[in-house]
């Protein structure tokens, strides 16, 4: 069982991580590099000063972008291990798992660890104002776990009580509120910051969709003979 979970998760996570790394390189890295010009003060946009919207940006950096690809695959394998473990647990209890249903599982995973945390703690461009890291990490874990439980209650719960509990779990982290800075100090223009947040969520959605799809596909294939 363990080896079937790990095999499916490795294959799914690795492919999804590569997709994410490619999408980051194409759509996210240019925004991030542009933002870093503001973070380091090479570009400034405060007051009446206009900032260059199309500066020359560094191109492909083997070391930096290679490490991004490595960490994307690591991260997505980590997520896939949890996702496929949950799929396997459900499959043991009669839930059908295949590629199409896996896609739904992947979307639920995206909502739990990217969309819900981003609702109150949007993906930050470099140079954004921030508060204590530990407090934000604790809030992040709490939100991801509460949202994941809510997703499970919506998918498998029976009766209005469980749906009610799911709504409470979905809302609670945002009613409690994420740690926010006392003052805004971001040096990056809002045009770039919003583009970064939207694209970060887009890359996350694509990689999670593929993690779920392939996780379901490989899990079904691994178990086809048994």
């Amino acid at each position, binding site marked *: 069982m363990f080896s079937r979970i790990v095999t499916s998760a490795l294959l799914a996570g690795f492919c999804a991580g590569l997709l994410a790394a490619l999408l980051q390189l194409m759509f996210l*890295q240019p925004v991030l590099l542009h933002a870093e010009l503001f973070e380091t003060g090479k570009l400034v946009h405060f007051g009446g000063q206009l900032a260059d919207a199309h500066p020359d940006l560094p191109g492909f950096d083997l070391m930096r972008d290679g490490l*991004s690809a490595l*960490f994307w695959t690591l*991260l997505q394998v*980590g997520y896939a291990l949890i996702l496929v*473990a949950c799929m396997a647990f459900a499959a043991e209890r009669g839930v059908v798992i295949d590629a199409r249903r896996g896609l739904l599982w992947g979307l639920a995973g995206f909502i739990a660890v990217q969309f819900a945390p981003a609702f109150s703690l949007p993906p930050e461009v470099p140079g954004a104002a921030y508060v204590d890291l530990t407090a934000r990490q604790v809030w992040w874990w709490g939100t991801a776990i509460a949202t994941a439980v809510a997703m499970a209650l919506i998918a498998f719960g029976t009766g209005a009580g469980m749906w009610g509990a799911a709504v409470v779990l979905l809302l609670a982290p945002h009613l409690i509120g994420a740690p926010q800075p006392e003052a805004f100090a971001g040096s990056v223009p809002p045009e770039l910051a919003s583009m970064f947040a939207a694209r*970060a969520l887009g890359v996350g959605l694509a990689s999670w969709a593929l993690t779920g799809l392939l996780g379901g596909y490989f899990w079904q294939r691994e178990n086809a003979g048994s």
Partner: protein
Amino acid sequence: MTAQVKTAAKSTARSTVMPFLAAMVLGLGIITIAGHVQASALHDAAHDVRHATGFPCH
């Protein structure tokens, strides 16, 4: 007899839950290292991905 059945049931339950738990703990460990641990070298290497995934980074 009843005790034996209970023990058997318990050990079956454990053997079916353990693989899921082991995979989840492994996954959580990887995510914690890749996304959250702040050791300087790790933070620098994972920097762009942490920003891209919306992890609290700095």
